[in-house]
């Protein structure tokens, strides 16, 4: 076995291309800049800025003095002299609206500020320190939430002689608990983050950790909630005015103006419109802004931020060859399968030109690292591509059915009864709100029908067949009451309910401990032996492949790069990627010495080279690799997508 690609590790950035062109720089843009790319956010922000500016420069902007009475022209509708008409004292409505922003916005601001300060301070402290602070917090929140807020607000206003600043601060406090819970929740989450532990280990002061590490993560929710609450506070401000708590005359406020209008609604209904609309638009803007902030900050901290816009057009041009004929002897025969998925910049092919055969009763491995398209291939087989995903070309022949052209109902009838799935996270793959038994029942009923008792009997039979020791008790349990191994057995029972010919096992043991993994693998093998069922096993673990598979396909960056009987492949891989992967297994290296490793990482679909996808990381790459490389058959029963496969053999024998 050769070290295909051992590298000097100390050399700077030898392994991975600097800057990681696989992870684009989208999120370097500050949040506010990305916010400005959203038209609604811009409009909302512009409106709010306009309101604030108008309020600040009201004396300059407003056409009239807002307190200037004109008793000869009261309640006039809109006119050239008074664009929005006049109020019951003949004052200019537009000018009052402009000035009204001063008080209303300050009131909203006071409420929002209190809200944020109380909510953030308490939520942050409770979430970060936990323990008794958290218990006190939880208790206090329960109390405050149970307080009939509006009544207390009325009482507070009475106590403070209608002082709106105090009332708005009280509103902020009364509304803060819900928000504080959110902050606490986020903080609890952030506290679990390992970078917090790392900061603690380094001895960073708690204050620093809170302000620099936790707070910024809470900023998103803070901005969202503050924005929404600001809008809500404006409404409450107006509502309180409606109940008779206004600011001092002659100071105009929006709420006050609505009340004024309501008191003369029979005389001049128009007056209701300008303040109502101004207020509604302000609230609307705050809400939209909040939504936009939420969306952008989700974008920013999101972990997936691959973009594939650049190359996707070119990719389309490079159409795969016409699909070859399916293998008639195979149970499943895939030819020329090409799958595209939506990405931030359009769609990109993530699986290209895949051929794959599984014969009845055979166990076939599909091996590769993450991002190579293994799972997408499995999803495509089942017709379960994520939203926007699409099989662009190719055939998936399952017995006599071509799944790529099958209609929805045909597809549904095939699933479960001909082809079934178990997946990686056993507990997550069960519905948390139903018992294990109920979930198996459902599929048994679906595939076989029958009475309640018959269904349950069959369910217990299935649970027994997956070697669960006490099937009746397991049937009664909820997924969270099951261990990973038990959950995976239940999942297998579900998959077996329809007696499928082919089981797609998508990393079925990756999340399990080795001892449990061994049991599950044995279980799969014995079931397979009993039923003559074929298995397509998707995994990144060569050991698993070696243990249970007869043949294996190796995928790299959307391509099948090699296929061979497992033993032969492990003995002598015929593609540099398979060789590299095998060589980098710690179990095959010399302890304490460098492992052979492949430099770099699997590129994102948008960064796939036009020729051999592996060429940029390949020690054997030459100019020949720049052109698309077809699969060739260097030995009987073996396929390789490498022009240099012969050099691998030389290396091995050398």
């Amino acid at each position: 076995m050769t070290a295909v690609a051992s590298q000097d590790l100390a050399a700077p950035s030898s392994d991975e291309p600097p800057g990681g062109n696989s992870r684009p720089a989208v999120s370097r843009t500050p949040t506010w800049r990305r916010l400005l790319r959203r038209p609604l956010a811009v409009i909302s922000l512009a409106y709010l800025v306009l309101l604030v500016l108008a309020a600040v420069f009201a004396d300059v902007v407003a056409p009239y003095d807002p307190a200037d009475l004109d008793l000869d022209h009261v309640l006039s509708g809109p006119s050239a002299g008074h664009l929005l008409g006049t109020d019951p004292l003949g004052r200019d409505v537009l000018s009052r609206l402009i000035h009204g922003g001063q008080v209303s916005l300050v009131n909203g601001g006071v409420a929002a500020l209190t809200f944020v300060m109380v909510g953030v301070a308490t939520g942050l402290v409770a979430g970060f320190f936990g323990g008794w602070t958290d218990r006190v917090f939880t208790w206090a929140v329960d109390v405050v939430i149970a307080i009939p807020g509006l009544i207390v607000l009325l009482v507070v206003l009475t106590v403070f002689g209608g002082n709106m600043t105090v009332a708005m601060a009280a509103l902020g406090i009364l509304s803060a608990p819900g928000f504080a819970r959110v902050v606490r929740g986020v903080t609890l989450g952030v506290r679990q983050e390992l970078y917090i532990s790392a900061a603690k280990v380094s001895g960073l002061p708690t204050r620093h950790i809170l302000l620099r590490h936790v707070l910024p993560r809470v900023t998103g929710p803070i901005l969202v909630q503050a924005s929404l609450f600001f809008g809500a506070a404006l409404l409450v401000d107006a509502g309180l005015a409606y109940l008779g708590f206004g600011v001092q005359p002659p100071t105009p406020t929006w709420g006050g103006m609505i009340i004024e209008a309501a008191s003369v609604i029979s005389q001049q209904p128009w007056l209701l419109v300008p303040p109502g609309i101004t207020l509604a638009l302000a609230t609307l803007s705050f809400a939209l802004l909040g939504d936009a902030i939420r969306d952008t900050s989700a974008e920013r901290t999101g972990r997936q931020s691959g973009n594939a816009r650049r190359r996707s057009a070119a990719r389309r041009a490079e159409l795969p060859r016409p699909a070859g004929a399916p293998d008639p002897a195979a149970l499943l025969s895939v030819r020329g399968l090409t799958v595209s998925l939506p990405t931030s910049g359009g769609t990109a092919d993530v699986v290209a030109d895949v051929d794959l055969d599984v014969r009845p009763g055979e166990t076939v491995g599909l091996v590769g690292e993450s991002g190579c398209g293994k799972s997408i291939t499995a999803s495509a087989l089942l017709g379960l591509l994520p939203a926007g995903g699409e099989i662009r070309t190719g055939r998936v022949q399952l017995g006599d059915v071509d799944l790529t052209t099958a209609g929805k109902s045909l597809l549904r009838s095939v699933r479960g009864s001909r082809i079934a799935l178990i997946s990686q996270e056993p507990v997550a793959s069960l519905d948390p709100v139903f018992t294990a038994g109920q979930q198996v029942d459902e599929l048994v009923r679906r595939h076989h029908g029958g009475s309640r008792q018959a269904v349950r009997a069959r369910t217990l039979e299935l649970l027994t067949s997956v070697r669960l020791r006490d099937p009746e008790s397991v049937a009664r349990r909820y997924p969270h009451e099951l261990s990973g191994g038990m959950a995976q057995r239940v999942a297998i029972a579900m998959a077996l309910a329809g007696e499928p010919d082919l089981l797609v096992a998508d990393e079925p043991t990756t999340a399990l401990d080795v001892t449990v993994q061994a049991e599950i693998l044995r279980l799969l093998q014995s079931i397979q032996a009993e039923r003559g069922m074929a298995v397509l096993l998707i995994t990144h673990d060569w050991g698993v492949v070696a243990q249970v598979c007869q043949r294996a396909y190796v995928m790299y960056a959307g391509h099948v790069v090699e296929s061979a009987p497992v033993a032969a492949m492990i003995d002598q891989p015929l593609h540099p990627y398979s060789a590299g992967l095998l060589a980098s297994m710690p179990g095959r290296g010399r302890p304490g010495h460098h492992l052979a490793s492949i430099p770099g990482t699997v590129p994102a679909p948008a960064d796939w080279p036009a020729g051999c996808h592996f060429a940029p990381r390949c020690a054997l790459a030459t100019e020949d690799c720049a052109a698309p490389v077809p699969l060739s058959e260097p030995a009987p029963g073996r396929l390789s997508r490498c022009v240099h496969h012969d050099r691998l053999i030389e290396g091995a024998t050398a």
Partner: protein
Amino acid sequence: MNGAPRHPSLTRRQFVIAGIAATGGVAVAACSSGSSSDAYGAGGTAGSSRTLRFHERTSAPTTLDPAVGFWNPLAYDVLIYRAPDGTFQPQLAESWQYVGAGNTTFELVLRPDITFTDGTPLTADAVRANIDYRKDPAVGSQSAQYVAAISEIEIVDDLTIRIHLSEPNPLLPTLFSQGMGGPGILVSPAALEDPSVLATGTHGVSRYLLVEDETVLGDHYAFAANPDYWNPDEVHWDGVVVHYLPEESAALSALQTGQLDAAWASFAITGAGRDAGLSVTGPGRPIILGLTLTDRGGVVVPALADVRVRQALNYALDRTKITTALIGESGAPVDQLATPDGAGWNSDGFYPHDVERARELLTDAGYADGFTIPVRLPNSEQHTRLTQAIADALSDINVRLELQAVPGNQWDAADAATNSAFGATYLGWGIDDPVRMAASFWLADATNNTFGSTDETLQSLQEQAMIAGEDDREDIDRQIIARVAELAWFLPVLVQGESVLYDDELVEVPWVDFLSVPTVSELRPAS
């Protein structure tokens, strides 16, 4: 006096006051048919059963106890009825008179063969029990201060009672009529044994009986005609439902959609109601609005100590313009504390709009550059609006008003401790007999006389009035009002009334002019 129990409610739901002129009380009321089919009771004309659905005002009575100020003409007959035209008419008392000169002894003769709805007969003892009930401080009756002057109650015979006073008072006919929760609103002595029943039930000599099942306290009250009432001619409806809608605009909507037959209406909906095709009569129930220039001693605002300054303020107002702009036809400008052509009214007036004159007076007083008056007022749309109009007018003579509007439930004109930090307070008062206004405003110990201002002339006029006969009072009243105006202790702006909006196919409203304070019991089916 009388009172409409408009307790000062805080909101903009008009806490307008139903102050009511010395004449009748306002009533509430209405009867109800036995089977109301919608929120407002049955429609008015339907066949044999006629129910009146009526909106009284925006704040509901707090209690049905008539001693606490709320007189319901449907449920409580009174000894002496003060009619909408201001005259006193016999109701449960057949006659009454002062005995001797000096207004210190008053005799009432009761109508015979009257029983309360609970069957108790009406006797002189019942009247005494009612007087005693008003005296109880725990009851909190507004008439308590007037009843307090009753030193002795003499039962002459079963139907005759004599009241002896510790000091002269010419207003006992008023005290025994429907105003201010007085003892003339007779409550069954049986009920007075346990007064707690008065809050939610009616226990008088009643034209209509409260239908408790169809009543929601504080929202609407249903009444059905009392078949045993002593004077069936006065029972016009089979039922009356009295509503208190929290918003006037809601009342207007209800009138327009036929959910109500009639409603009291302020300026805010009167015009719109007329435009919508409803009939309008009024305005009545006058109330005077403006400012009380409380600081006549110049404690807070030295300038106000000078009578020329106070007069200047009065000259500076264009009352006609303000009245027209603010309330249109629902009121009239006034420059004195009286209703046009009512008791004490001086028809020549005192303060025409004359800014020049105002400036001269200010200059003479040394305040040509003006000054600032802190003003305290209740924070309700209508009152702040008027105060701002006043402020705007005064700014022409460089006088600035610094407004402090407090929530309605904190507003109290009698709260001297708080109000003494202000130069002026808001004035909203249902015009009353000048003699009684004195006790509220211009006697040294008057409840609303924040700084205890006194004036000898007013003092002596008051003394004359207290002992004067009915015929002499008219002139003395006029002198009192004139003196108050000359002193310029107030800045009255307008008298505002309310109108009745109604559907004239269903209801007939028999009066109304500015003085009148009609009661719902006078509404009758359209003929």
